[in-house]
């Protein structure tokens, strides 16, 4: 239980040190020392104000590390800079840390690693395990990221995304959301569930920043997470949406996601995460696959295409059109989408099958399997091709 508390306190303690003028990397080391100390000392006596305790210890460690003077001088310094007692308000501090970790000068991989470490409070080993790389590699990735953002700082203007227009600049909250979404989408797992971790961090962000798109992302994650148990069979194979056992969907998470989404949509500032969450909500809302409101889903895809102009969105839209208006209409919509896109063949195969052209469908499923980016998808598509070939053979 203390580990969760420590993880939730880590970002705000770190930001206090950074705001007091500590270099990011040195502050991070000092906070890690303080966490180790807490794990050692707290079981015997838990401090009344855990955050204040951590700030005090971390700041002392920072001073110890940066001032290579005599011990006498350090003792004097400690007394001199003793922070004021009592809990410090940490709301905006943590927000600054999110911005720093998603800084546009970092590669996505570095931003993700730094966010998990600094905001999430995960250990380097946990992050390395989640990404299936050696700990030394992840340690280097994180320390490079820390060097990159050291001295960058976060301007107050960036920490206030409420101003109109600031939402789409790099370094604004949209970048933070993209990083959190990357974490959520990772399928890897060590002893940390990255999807759950992304939800935890997004909840934290939603608590300190009032923006419909932050709520939209949180809703989107909750709605997808709610279906997770039904997405794979016990043997690890993929179960497509239409065939999922809807009894295994987490209705509490769905209700929470839908509630958050509706509140966000009511504010009439649509963004791509809200639109995606709306589509996920329409799927979650259907008692059976047949009862899915495909017409409304197509409308949301139209919104999404307008907001993002993304080819992947147009590809998904073609699937929805196929369901709403029939496979021929879906194929017509698909004709306007770049055929080189991943999963283009899989979508084409599905639409041809529904149109009754099993030979073409089987060939396209096999081609899609050949290009699949992961094993579960390849196996699934290979089975589809095999199923059609067996049916045609009879």
């Amino acid at each position, binding site marked *: 239980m203390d580990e969760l508390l420590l993880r939730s306190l880590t970002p705000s303690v770190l930001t206090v040190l950074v705001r007091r003028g500590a270099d990011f990397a040195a502050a991070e080391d000092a906070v890690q020392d303080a966490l180790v100390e807490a794990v050692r000392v707290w079981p015997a006596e838990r401090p009344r104000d855990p955050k204040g305790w951590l700030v005090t210890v971390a700041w002392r460690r920072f001073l110890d590390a940066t001032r290579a003077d005599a011990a006498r001088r350090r003792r004097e310094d400690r007394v001199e800079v003793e922070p004021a007692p009592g809990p410090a308000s940490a709301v905006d501090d943590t927000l600054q840390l999110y911005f720093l970790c998603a800084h546009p000068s970092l590669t996505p991989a570095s931003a993700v690693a730094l966010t998990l470490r600094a905001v999430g409070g995960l250990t380097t080993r946990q992050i390395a395990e989640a990404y299936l790389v050696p700990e030394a*590699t992840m340690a*280097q990735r994180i320390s490079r990221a820390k060097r990159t953002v050291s001295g960058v700082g976060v301007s107050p203007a960036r920490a206030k995304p409420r101003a109109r227009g600031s939402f789409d600049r790099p370094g604004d909250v949209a970048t933070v959301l993209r990083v959190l979404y990357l974490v959520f989408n990772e399928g890897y797992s060590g002893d940390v569930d990255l999807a759950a971790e992304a939800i935890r961090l997004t909840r934290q962000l939603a608590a300190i920043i009032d923006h419909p798109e932050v709520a939209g992302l949180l809703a989107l994650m909750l709605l997808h997470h709610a279906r997770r148990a039904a997405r794979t069979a016990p043997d690890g194979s993929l179960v497509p949406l239409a065939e999922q056992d809807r009894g295994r969907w987490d209705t509490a998470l769905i209700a929470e996601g839908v509630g958050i989404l509706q509140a966000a949509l009511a504010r009439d500032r649509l963004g791509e995460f809200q639109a995606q969450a709306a589509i996920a909500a329409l799927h979650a809302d259907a008692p059976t696959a047949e009862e899915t409101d495909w017409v409304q889903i197509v409308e949301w895809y139209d919104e999404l295409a307008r907001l993002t102009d993304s080819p992947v969105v147009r590809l998904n839209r073609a699937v929805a059109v196929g369901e709403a208006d029939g496979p021929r209409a879906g194929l017509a919509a698909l004709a306007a989408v770049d055929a080189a896109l991943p999963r283009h063949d899989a979508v084409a195969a599905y639409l041809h099958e529904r149109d009754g052209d099993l030979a073409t469908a089987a060939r396209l499923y096999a081609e899609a399997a050949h290009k699949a980016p992961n094993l579960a998808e390849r196996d699934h598509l290979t089975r589809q091709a095999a199923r059609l070939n067996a049916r045609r053979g009879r």
Partner: protein
Amino acid sequence: MAKYLLLKHYRGAPASVNDVPMDQWSPEEISAHVRYMNDFAARLEKTGEFVDGQALAPEGAWVRYDGEGRPPVTDGPFAETKDLIAGWMIIDVDSYERAVELAGELSAAPGAGGKPIHEWLEVRPFLATPPTITD
């Protein structure tokens, strides 16, 4: 991030530009080659892109199940004309372009005369685990 396997072949790959068998290099040339490879790996460790790398012995055997209660069949201790893999490195990089860039650098390892070998390396993406969202 995505993982890629960089494969180095003993044979089976197209001939390199600087195509001189290693046993005809000078000891210094061999040392320079090995140092280049080690430096390359160390540099990728620093950038956070290194996952693993190993050299493989040239001797290998085909092995096959030969039915219930029987020992597996092998083709004997001597390798024949199979495509033999000399070693591999796994990297974890931001893009396919970066993987190709790094493979290009590795292919420039010095060989005979201290000149780059220009050997052919195979670059293969890993099949990843599925993302949280596919539907």
